[in-house]
């Protein structure tokens, strides 16, 4: 397939996955702030997931302001709105390649976030309803991919993008929750909301049958191969999809990327042998660096960017 098309499909999937993860985090944390974490630090959320360049740094005084900024803002580089515009622009440039149904689902997503009712819900009514409506659109996207896309190269790059982004988002959200814990009186509650944000709380109660020990939460988030938002699961999926490219790739290109992905999985296995909580602060920056390298090499070898 065309390198440009592969690039766009890859980024379309990354922006969509980012959107999905941030929406889940916002939904979880908004509900937490309403009912349990009454002193929720919205500024910390903005500082972590908003634009952190000094000239664009924003001070927020209310939760609605934070949500407005992170969801609806039209110029803000990190907002859900901008992400969806990017998803759609990427999809538009490969509109002949993705299925018509997929294009329509993204187009609907775009029209949903532009719908004045969405803004009204976030600014004046129940933001959870708005976030649910948006999350439903992303679920429709994944369902449409699953039922309509052929299992060729495009599907593979789409999934590669999806799982790279998912892994990075899990790391970001884990780091963010760690920052929240530093300031908190009750650490455990933040572990719970970490699991909620990653759609993993129910899984935890069933798989670990315990009252939220930090080590077990970390195990689930980093090392549990059955948990679809865990680091190890995402890496395994990246590996699985990348293997499908072998027949479509130049052998030396395949080999190089394959090595990078395998090394990432190995380094996570090495971390698993160490002390769980203390190792997080090393693992997160280390993996991010490896991801940066992976992205850069994919871009050069597969997407035709120099």
């Amino acid at each position: 397939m065309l390198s440009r098309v592969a690039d766009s499909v890859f980024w379309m999937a990354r922006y969509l996955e980012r959107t999905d993860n941030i929406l889940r985090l916002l939904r979880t944390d908004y509900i937490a702030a309403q009912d349990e974490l009454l002193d929720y630090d919205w500024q910390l959320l903005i500082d972590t997931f908003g634009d952190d360049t000094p000239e664009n740094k924003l001070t927020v005084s209310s939760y609605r302001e934070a949500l407005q900024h992170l969801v609806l803002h039209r110029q803000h580089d990190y907002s859900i709105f901008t992400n969806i515009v990017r998803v759609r622009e990427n999809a538009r440039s490969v509109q002949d390649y993705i299925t018509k149904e997929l294009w329509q689902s993204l187009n609907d997503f775009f029209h949903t976030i532009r719908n004045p009712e969405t803004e009204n819900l976030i600014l004046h009514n129940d933001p959870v309803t708005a976030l649910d409506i948006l999350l439903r659109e992303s679920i429709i996207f994944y369902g449409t991919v699953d039922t309509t896309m052929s299992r060729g190269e495009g599907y593979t790059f789409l999934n590669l993008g999806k799982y790279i982004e998912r892994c990075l988002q899990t790391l970001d959200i884990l780091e963010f929750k760690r920052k929240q814990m530093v300031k908190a009186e009750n650490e455990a509650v933040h572990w719970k909301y970490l699991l909620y944000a990653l759609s993993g709380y129910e899984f935890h109660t069933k798989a670990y049958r315990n009252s939220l020990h930090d080590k077990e939460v970390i195990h689930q988030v980093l090392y549990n191969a059955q948990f679809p938002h865990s680091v190890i699961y995402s890496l395994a999926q990246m590996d699985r999809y990348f293997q499908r490219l072998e027949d479509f790739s130049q052998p030396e290109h395949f080999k190089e990327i394959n090595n990078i992905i395998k090394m990432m999985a190995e380094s996570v296995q090495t971390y698993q042998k160490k002390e769980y909580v203390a190792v997080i602060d090393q693992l997160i920056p280390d993996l991010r660096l490896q991801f940066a390298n992976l992205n850069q090499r994919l871009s050069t070898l597969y997407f035709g960017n120099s």
Partner: protein
Amino acid sequence: MPFSKFLANYHESPHTWDEMCAHGEIRAHYKLFLESLEKASMVDLIHKDDLAKKLFMSQGITFTVYSDGEGIEKIFPFDIIPRIITAVEWTHIEAGIKQRLRALNLFLKDIYHEQAIVKDKIIPASMIQSCPYFLKEMVGVDVPFDIYTHISGIDLIRDSDGSYYVLEDNLRTPSGVSYMLENRNMTYRLFPGLLPKNNVRSVKDYPDLLLKNLLALSNRQVSNPTVVLLTPGIFNSAYFEHTTLARLMGVELVEGKDLVVHDFKVYMKTTAGLKQVDVIYRRVDDEFLDPLVFNPTSMLGVSGLYYAYRKGNVSIINAPGNGVADDKAVYTFVPAMIKYYLKEEPILKTVPTYYMDNREHFDHVFGQIRKMVIKKTNGSGGYGMLMGHASSDQEIEDYKVEVQKDPRQFIAQPMIQLSSVPCFIDGKIQPRHVDLRPFALYGPSGIEIVPGGLTRVALKEGSLVVNSSQGGGSKDTWVLG
């Protein structure tokens, strides 16, 4: 008036051929359609109108106007009432377009080779030399199967007596065919059952016919030639059409930056390395095709493409340089071409045309400017036109100054009162002026025209400007079997 529930506000304009009514009577070919509306109310039509808008929006059949970094989505206005053309009329149109395209192709081959038509003084040499679309780089170049105009959209209008005139031959990169296809898709959603009931001929074959031709034009002896559609990119107003056609044909949609020329062969950059391209259906204008030969600032083209083409290693569809045949000044010579090359009488009429670089014509035109339209010979989209009846004295004076600066770039034609058809506007069925652009495909096995085309509508009451950039819309076009 029969069908008064719907047609109470339908008033035929004087001196206009109305395609539905003749002196208050409904023409036979519209009766079945109107009868099928009998059970509907005006409110039903309003709902259909809303449904059409929603469907266009959700399917992303839109064009984007960019401002402040955020795209504003607009839909190309669509009128729900189909325009109906009888089988007899279509036979006439089809024969006329085929005849015209055969002549235009022979003209293009001639003009880039022997130039017999010039030597025989049928067309003045100056007319060709001064045409900006004449490409000296194409002189002496043999093109596959001698076909220059593989895809064309011929604009037809009907005068007050109902006869068909050719208004323009769009031979370079004519657009609108995706709207022909999408408008039809809309009709079966809005009027279930009516297409078969009226025995409307299908336009669905278009992408298959186009692909068949593109594959047949490959020069390389391979079982499965690689065809691509070259687009200027997502900011082009016809981008939706490019994606639609690429998808329907199952070919790659490429941009200039996806292609590279190596050793006079064209390749596309894929994830698995370079892959040779055999046929390029380009939607990029001649001048942007190859920065090494044409416009050096072009970012849309591919360096070296022209030489790959000259070597016969890639087919470019439509052929570069064919714009010399759709120049508005050359247009008047088409009847002469038909007689010269084919020894036939022209089937379709041509609008009388005056040259602004001819002093007598100039005086004649400005003497009765209220009845005239002046156009740029290389203009499109309805821009840069002067419509005498709708312009102020000052506008006419200003335009005259422009014309005098470079008279070769302008022609004038008497105002033709385009025919009118019923449209559903502001909750009422009213007549509006239309033209018709059927799309013709010229391949090695001959010329094929899918029965239909794009009907463009001047949505403003009384207006004769149908261009989408100037308040025009479109509607489905039914050719009856």
